[in-house]
């Protein structure tokens, strides 16, 4: 079978594709072939360049260099619509349906069958039925149903139907099963199998190795924007693929780990805590310790942080802060109880971009002050010296603290966020992706600062999708998957160990593992 496909002309081929974004090489000279009737998975860590490659193939990005061939013919796409008309369709992770319109309306948006501008609704519904029938879901989805009334899986099927209606030859799916239940995944598997029979080339990106091994025939590994290897599923094991994905040395110096004998009392203790987003989480966090939280996208890492900080509070289970049972129902209460939360999305949740650095730094202090208390631009009373002191402490490079925070670099903005929480005098810190999108130099200094916090007896929960960061910083590592804590690993565990656990290929029976 594999030998046969080698002789067939590839349906699509990319050659020497490179793409740079400011400060990053997203793709570096990547060449790949996709054959008709082949299910091809593209895997890699976050930032490996998978999504960038798919966006280039589907016309959303224009490559800096390199060429795309479709059935041997050189093509160039300046707009996704051009790729679509040539038979390349992409289904993004976030759905692109109009919720308040019918299935048929969504499938034929922009290409509605009509006579003199008047919609031929019957014709449109009939054609939609045909397309739905073609992918074998006509009994499940009615063309006249509103998209918002469909389940996530059904919406995905409609997206596939839309792609099919363009007579697509290449179908790209970005994390197709991320939001699906098991039975729905089976349904999708069936469908992908049928599309393969039609001779389509199916490409999908996935973080879940289990599903890659369930569905794909070929697996291509990308790492740091470079092509690593294309392998046949039957020739490799998941562990091999993980090795290809992460096999590299740590590229960055981390401060020394904490010494277990120096860890203090339990600062934060969670038992069986659940809300709508996460299930039955239990763990303990000690003073002076960094507890890393690893997991794939959508595993519930950020939701855990938000629950702890009262953004989306726990609905059941118990939370103890310094031995005192407590319900943190909102962020105000968390700050009052000396918790700090350095959020994942710096722009949306970390800084107020149009406010001066000074006001950003004083935000938490002012938040817990009397609402009608007097404020002074430098803070009042003993906090008056706060701004210059904090600025020095976190080493912000700016000529004036009156400068609007939006004009700082990403690294310096993150330092402002850090300063804001230092000012609040918090003793339990939650970091969510503390160094995402930050230059290497600032990264190192933020890592040093986080470690310094623990030396002052502060407890740190650090969420990160960068495994080197998790390994380099954590005194213990919690691994999350499917919105549960699936296991705990000791300091200096390997990337393979973490990835195997996070992709559902290994679990440990530690005390912290979720129920079942």
């Amino acid at each position: 079978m594999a030998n046969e496909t080698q002789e067939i002309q590839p349906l699509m081929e990319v050659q020497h594709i490179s793409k740079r974004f400011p400060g990053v090489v997203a793709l570096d000279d990547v060449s790949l072939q996709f054959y008709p009737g082949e299910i091809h998975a593209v895997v890699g860590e976050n930032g490996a360049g998978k999504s960038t490659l798919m966006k280039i193939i589907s016309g959303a990005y224009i490559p800096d260099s390199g060429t795309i061939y479709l059935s041997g013919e050189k093509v160039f796409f300046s707009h996704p619509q051009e790729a679509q008309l040539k038979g390349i369709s992409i289904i993004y992770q976030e759905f692109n349906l109009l919720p308040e319109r019918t299935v048929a309306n969504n499938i034929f948006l922009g290409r509605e069958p009509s006579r003199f501008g008047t919609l031929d609704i019957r014709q449109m519904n009939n054609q939609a039925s045909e397309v739905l029938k073609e992918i074998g879901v006509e009994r499940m989805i009615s063309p006249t149903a509103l998209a918002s009334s469909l389940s996530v899986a059904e919406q995905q099927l409609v997206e596939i139907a839309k792609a099919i209606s363009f007579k697509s030859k290449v179908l790209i799916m970005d994390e197709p099963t991320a939001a699906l239940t098991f039975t729905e995944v089976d349904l999708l598997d069936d469908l992908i199998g049928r599309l393969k029979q039609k001779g389509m080339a199916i490409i999908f990106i996935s973080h879940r190795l289990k599903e890659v091994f369930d569905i794909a025939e070929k697996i291509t590994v990308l790492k740091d924007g470079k092509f690593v290897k294309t392998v046949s599923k039957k020739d490799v094991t998941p562990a091999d693929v993980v090795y290809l994905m992460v096999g590299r040395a740590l590229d960055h110096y981390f401060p020394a780990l904490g010494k277990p004998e120096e860890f203090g009392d339990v600062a934060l203790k969670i038992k069986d805590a659940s809300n709508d987003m996460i299930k039955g989480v239990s763990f303990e966090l000690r003073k002076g310790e960094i507890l890393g939280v690893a997991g794939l996208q959508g595993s519930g890492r950020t939701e855990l942080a938000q629950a702890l900080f009262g953004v989306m509070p726990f609905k059941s289970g118990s939370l103890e802060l310094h031995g005192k049972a407590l319900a943190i129902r909102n962020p105000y209460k968390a700050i009052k109880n000396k918790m700090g939360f350095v959020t994942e999305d710096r722009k949306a949740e970390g800084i107020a971009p149009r406010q001066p650095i000074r006001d950003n730094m004083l935000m938490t202090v002012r938040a817990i002050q009397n609402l009608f208390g007097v404020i002074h631009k430098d803070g009042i009373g003993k906090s008056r010296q706060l701004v210059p002191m904090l600025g020095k402490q976190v080493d912000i490079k700016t000529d004036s603290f009156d400068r609007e925070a939006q004009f700082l670099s990403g690294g310096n903005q993150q330092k402002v966020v850090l300063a804001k929480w230092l000012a609040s005098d918090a003793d339990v810190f939650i970091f969510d992706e503390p160094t995402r999108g930050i230059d290497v130099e600032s990264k190192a200094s933020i890592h040093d600062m986080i470690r310094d916090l623990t030396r002052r007896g502060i407890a740190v929960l650090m969420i990160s999708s960068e495994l080197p960061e998790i390994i380099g910083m954590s005194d213990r590592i919690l691994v999350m998957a499917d919105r549960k804590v699936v296991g705990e690993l000791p300091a200096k565990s390997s990337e393979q160990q973490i990835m195997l656990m996070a992709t559902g290929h290994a679990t440990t029976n530690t005390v912290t593992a979720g129920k079942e």
Partner: protein
Amino acid sequence: MTTATASGNGFRRFARSIHIPPVYYILILIFLVGGLLDQIFADGQIFKNPAIMLNIVVRSVALGIVAVGQTLVITGASIDLSVAYTISITAVMSSYVMQGKDVNVPQAILVVFLIGAAIGLVNGLIITKLHINPFICTLGTSLILSGIINATFSDYTGKVPQSFQFFGYGTLGPVPVSILILLLIVLGGWFLLARTKFGSHLYGVGGNPEVARLSGVRTDRVLIIAHIICSMTAVLAGLFLVSQMGSGAPWVGPNGVYDLNSIATTVIGGTALSGGKGGMWGTLGGVLIFGILDTVFNQLGVNPYLKTVLQGAIIVVAVASYTLRSKKEAA
């Protein structure tokens, strides 16, 4: 996995299957309450009198016509605050050109429709090409228009010929012409929105402009056309008002609060301010609610400010109920 969320009881599902907008429940409720108040305080003289009942609709005609246009732009996630002064400029310009003579009517109509088209085109171009927030853009054009009108005309200008007043007061058999006009416009608006490619694309632009663009919809053009049609409906409303009053006054638009009221009735009718959701029949329901309130309060001689309070409350309650509904459906 079924396609229907199957929420609610059989009746509600039936109502949804034939697409009765929920605003009509509110309309019926207000109708019943109005009838009850009428029985108690006026011995049922309002609701027994067919002339007054027809008057509910007649009073709604001008607002109804503008609301049709407003529904189009709001469906496209835009808005038009300049309709009130577009009505005013139509009123003064048409009566000024007509000067009470029948022969001038075609010119007058041509002039005001050209002005309307220009206003809509400018609004649409500013919003789509300069990427100015539609609220701000149309607030700006509205102020500009108001300045121009007030600087040029101060009181009634010109006169409308007797024949033209047919639109305001004439009847075809027992049915007032004005009601037929309103029905025709609403039907036209419904057809545009529900039965044409333009309407389908407008829902796309309002629902998610990026999705629409990637599906090949020429989003800018769709929105510009919607704005032109919206201004045209304001012109029609202006002509109708002039035909009722026999003359054009610069304050007809703002005095009728046609800008905010057309937005309010559209939103009460179930069209989402965020765009992409709603329909013309809902808007008609919203307009009739305002018409009933108007008539009942008038006939019962209640303090008119109370009516405004009630209108405000209805807006809030209606929109809150839509939000709660969609939250429930999402769950």
